């Protein structure tokens, strides 16, 4: 985890030729739809059970949508605002590594939210999801308010690994890593 998104590591993984997808740039609706379709069309994923395939796609979709919704415009165009790496870890496990620039002012709230999710078991996460969904419906609130993270936690095999990297100008690079079991 300490090496998460180290430049050389990412390039090294790209050179291995293993099953993986790498994207660096802005996450748009079209990119999300294309990436999900590409992963879903993979023949070996067609062979796994429907719930397992859905867990992988759910985690991927929610990660990407979180990135799309929470990445501000950054003045320095030389810095990619989003990175996505999807890699096959074994026949029964895929890893998702995503990173995006966010406002440093929003870091404490996100940090607290993930810590709360990581301290909960699956049943508690389900309760949190139901409660939050009810609140969103009742308020007519169209913002996700952490529902995406909860869905990622429900799909992932373990805790949400994450890290904040300080940048200049009130921006922070947020990295998140989850593994999804396919069995």
């Amino acid at each position, binding site marked *: 985890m300490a090496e998460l998104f180290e430049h050389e590591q990412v390039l090294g993984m790209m050179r291995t030729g293993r099953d993986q997808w790498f994207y660096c740039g802005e996450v748009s609706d079209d990119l999300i*739809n294309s990436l999900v379709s590409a992963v879903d069309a993979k023949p070996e994923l067609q062979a796994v059970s429907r*719930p397992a395939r*859905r867990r992988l796609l759910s985690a991927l979709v929610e990660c990407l*949508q979180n990135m799309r919704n929470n990445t501000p415009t950054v003045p320095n165009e030389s810095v990619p605002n989003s990175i996505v790496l999807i890699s096959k870890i074994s026949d029964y496990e895929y890893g998702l590594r995503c990173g995006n620039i966010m406002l440093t002012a929003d870091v404490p709230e996100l940090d607290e939210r993930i810590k709360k999710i990581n301290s909960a078991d699956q049943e508690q996460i389900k309760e949190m999801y*139901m409660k939050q969904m009810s609140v*969103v419906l009742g308020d007519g609130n*169209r913002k*996700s308010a952490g529902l995406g993270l909860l869905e990622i936690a429900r799909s992932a095999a373990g805790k949400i690994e994450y890290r904040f990297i300080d940048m200049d100008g009130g921006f922070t690079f947020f990295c998140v890593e989850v593994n999804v079991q396919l069995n």
Partner: protein
Amino acid sequence: MDTLFIPATKTTPQVDFNSATNVFELKGRSIPADAMMFYQPLERWCESYAANSTQTSIAVDVKLDHLNTGSVRTLLSALSKLLKARDRGVKVQINWYYDVEDEDMMDKGEEISLILDHPFKYIAVRSEDY
């Protein structure tokens, strides 16, 4: 009221809300990047239908094999608007189809049912059947 029909895409389901038969069907996968944009016409249609329908009963057939969080949120909103028809004496039956080997999707239906406080009928089928 006009029938609402939206063909399926790789990330959005087929919508066939037939006002002639009073059977409203959602079928396929619902993982759009912008769920609000996709479901907005559906929400408006449900709101209008609930306010104007003269039927005594309607059936909603949900045959989805995958919903992302945005879809759950907007589907909840659309169904809650449709359920307002109950205030006018309309019986609303929601049939939740799921693959016989995919109980996770049945669980998802139970979650939505609980939040809406409206019982669903759960129907297990083989995936090739829907």
